[in-house]
């Protein structure tokens, strides 16, 4: 297991039960420490709690998504395999057993990424009004949230052909929603501005000066204030637990080594295959999955077989098609040069001060903030503008590709009349998509 051992552990080494207790308190809805011990001995009682925990960590699916234990077990297997978990094949296929494997999977997740930090960040209580400064590389956890599967649109029959007008309808709907969202965002900003202006001078912290929305709410509604206090206390407890865990995690990892040793050796060295799904309880989706993974395997094998001769043939042909290849090469070179120039510009532009990452508290201030402290709105706007420019560039490239494709298609179907949309005509207004 590619584990990272953090800290020498010498400073605050305590007993193993303390380490496990700290971990369980730091995890959201963490299982009791006893669960860990039971899992070491592969006891079935530990299964439900561990599985619930893992599912919560891995997927953002609603809990009733797979209500039966077998379904949950399959879901968990797939989610772990999708992340490249090497012992996927050993995970339980049914809902009844395999608590030790589940514990190992949890440890793998903990060792592989800063999972705990990310979970704590996700559950953080927001006291200030915030804006996220950098959205370039959303963490995988955010990606998961974004990739939440949505319910299928009504009327989309995946079997038959879809009427293009229906797609245009859905597209239009999306655009209207986008505009409504932009309006509400605007409204939100205006209200924030008002609250900040009205509460100017109310904050005990002179640097901040004014209250944020959660703070104003807490003052306005005492009960809400109590709740906020309670949530902050909970968060504090979790943070303390996380700190304690950091101090004594070495013990945990040593214990995990002993868990790994108690595992029976693998029967044979199987390559990591996608999970097989048992045939009886298959839903249509998993049946399709099964079919697809089998097809994928066949395709991969076919590909390997076909690739060798093709490569040889291509190399032979490439020799013959010199000028074409040269033009292509030039095109690639030009594209690379362009990218390099763009990268260089971004680098030079962004190099001056180190830009703050992550969420920033919004503060309205009359006084000039000394350079290097915080992020000025103008700077953030600059970053956003350059991001917008990049995205627009990408969009226009994609549009050009689409038009080329359309032009190609119009040549390929002589019986059909293609009318490319002219500027602003009936096509959705470009202003709506920005």
């Amino acid at each position: 297991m590619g584990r990272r051992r953090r800290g020498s552990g010498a400073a605050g080494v305590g007993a193993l039960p303390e380490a496990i207790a700290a971990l369980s308190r730091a995890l959201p809805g963490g299982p009791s420490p006893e669960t860990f011990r039971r899992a070491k001995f592969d006891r079935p009682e530990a299964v439900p709690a561990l599985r619930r925990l893992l599912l919560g960590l891995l997927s953002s699916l609603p809990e009733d998504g797979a209500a039966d234990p077998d379904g949950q077990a399959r879901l968990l297997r797939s989610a772990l395999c999708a992340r490249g978990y090497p012992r996927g094949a050993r995970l339980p296929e049914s809902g009844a057993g395999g608590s030790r494997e589940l514990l190992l999977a949890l440890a793998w997740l903990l060792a592989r990424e800063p999972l705990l930090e990310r979970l704590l960040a996700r559950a953080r209580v927001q006291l200030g009004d915030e804006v996220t400064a950098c959205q370039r590389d959303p963490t995988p956890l955010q990606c998961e949230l974004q990739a939440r599967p949505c319910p299928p649109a009504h009327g989309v029959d995946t079997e038959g052909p879809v009427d293009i007008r229906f797609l245009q309808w859905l597209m239009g709907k999306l655009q209207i929603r986008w505009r409504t969202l932009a309006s509400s965002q605007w409204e939100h900003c205006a209200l924030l501005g008002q609250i900040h202006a009205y509460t100017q001078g109310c904050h005990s912290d002179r640097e901040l000066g004014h209250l944020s929305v959660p703070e104003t709410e807490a003052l306005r509604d005492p009960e809400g204030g109590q709740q906020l206090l309670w949530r902050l206390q909970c968060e504090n407890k979790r943070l303390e637990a996380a700190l304690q865990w950091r101090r004594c995690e070495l013990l945990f990892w040593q214990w995990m080594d002993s868990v790994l040793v108690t595992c029976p050796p693998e029967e044979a060295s199987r390559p990591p295959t996608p999970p097989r799904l048992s045939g009886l309880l298959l839903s249509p989706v998993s049946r399709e999955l099964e079919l697809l993974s089998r097809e994928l395997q066949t395709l991969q094998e076919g590909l390997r077989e076909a690739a060798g001769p093709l490569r040889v043939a291509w190399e032979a042909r490439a020799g013959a098609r010199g000028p074409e290849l040269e033009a292509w090469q030039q095109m690639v070179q030009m594209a690379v040069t362009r990218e390099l120039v763009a990268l260089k510009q971004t680098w030079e532009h962004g190099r001056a001060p180190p830009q703050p990452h992550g969420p920033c508290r919004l503060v309205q201030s009359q006084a000039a903030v000394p350079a290097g402290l915080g992020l000025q709105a103008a700077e953030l706007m600059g970053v956003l503008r350059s991001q917008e420019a990049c995205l627009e560039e990408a969009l226009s490239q994609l549009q050009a590709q689409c038009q080329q494709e359309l032009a190609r298609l119009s040549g390929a179907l002589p019986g059909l009349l293609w009318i490319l949309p002219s500027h602003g005509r009936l096509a959705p207004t470009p202003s709506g998509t920005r």
Partner: protein
Amino acid sequence: MVSMSIVTVQLGQCGNQIGFEVFNTLLNDSHSPQGLCCKRENELYQVSCKERFFSEEENGVPIARAVLVDMEPKVINQTLSKAAQSGRWKYGQHSYFCQKQGSGNNWAYGYSVHGPKHEESVMNLVQKEVEKCDSLSGFFIIMSMAGGTGSGLGAFVTQSLQDQYSNSLRMNQIIWPYGTGEVIVQNYNSILTLSHLYRSSDALLVHENDAAHKICAKLMNIKQISFSDINQVLAHQLGSVFQPTYSTEGSFHYRRNPLGDLMESLVPHPEFKMLGVRNIPQMSESSLAYSTFTWTGLLKHLRQMLISNAKMEEGIDWQVQPHFSGHPTLGKMSLNKELHFNTSIANLVILRGKDVHSADLGGFKDPALYTSWLDPVNAFSVWKTQRAFCKYEKSAALVSNSQFLVKPLDMIVGKAWSMFASKAYIHQYTKFGVEEEDFLDSFTLLEQVIASYCNL
């Protein structure tokens, strides 16, 4: 929760007169003691209506969120003073713009001369109004389709709004001219207005003068019909759509953004933007006192008005029936055509009044009513409130994106084309920079719209 506001832009004689009636209807209704609901609910209804369409002045008189624009002062002065005289609401002191010289029913003059010349002044007024809103949902732009100022300048202003407020929604309320029109070039003006709005607006809510006239004559029993009567009918229709309704079934919160919700459910497709409104019941106050209604009866009539394309509940053709669903074949189309079946893309029904939760809307969820590429789950929506509207114990309104307007549109395009073919009056347009090519573009676009609606 704050209701999102709508800023109205009233353009030209027609737009200003109708705009006045709309605000008057909205405020009279929200202060009507006959809301037939509890006090608390009535208060929420009033607040929601006010936030959306009015801003509060210091002495408590609501001020319409509106900008008045005309190239002649007469109608604007009348409108301002009528509102002030009502005592219940008024227009903002500096929210109007007028000039001394009209557009002479020439669309090109309104669009190419008045438009650019006064753009800055008009947009400044709009900006002031927008700044008064905590949250802006979008714009109502009320204008005629066939005149000079309302239609030409209206098309120009809509474009400016698109440029400056690209995220806000734009709904144009356009008044379709009488079939026996007063203006010789009304068909030219109409095609230019429609084609330009198709590019710059999100939805065209069309009111037909002919239909409103008939409603006045047949349902309201008015003998000498004035423009004011007709405008009141139109205002009633608009009010019945945009007054507050519950945000969801079973909720007692009022909808925050009806304009956005309406557009999302009716006009997402860029080729289908034409909406029509139907109301039921509509009658004179004297007959109202002796009438009772059931939801079943009202909805049965409203549905038949929809599928047979009737403009009012009188003279409905009950022969028209949908073909059995599940056969989206050519047979269905030809049969429907034969029986003048009005196929819908999407419909929105708004119910207001007593026992509204018991109303059965199954008749509107029949797939046979809709185009084959959209099923009723996507194509049909309903808004409700227990609060009665304008003295009607129960009332229903229907906003429909359907083949309602294909025939009149086809007629206007046809007439304009035959005039254009003989080059009649074209010089009046080219003189101000609207070229023959612009006409051709307009024809192409509208022919495409007609074809799209025909092929539902």
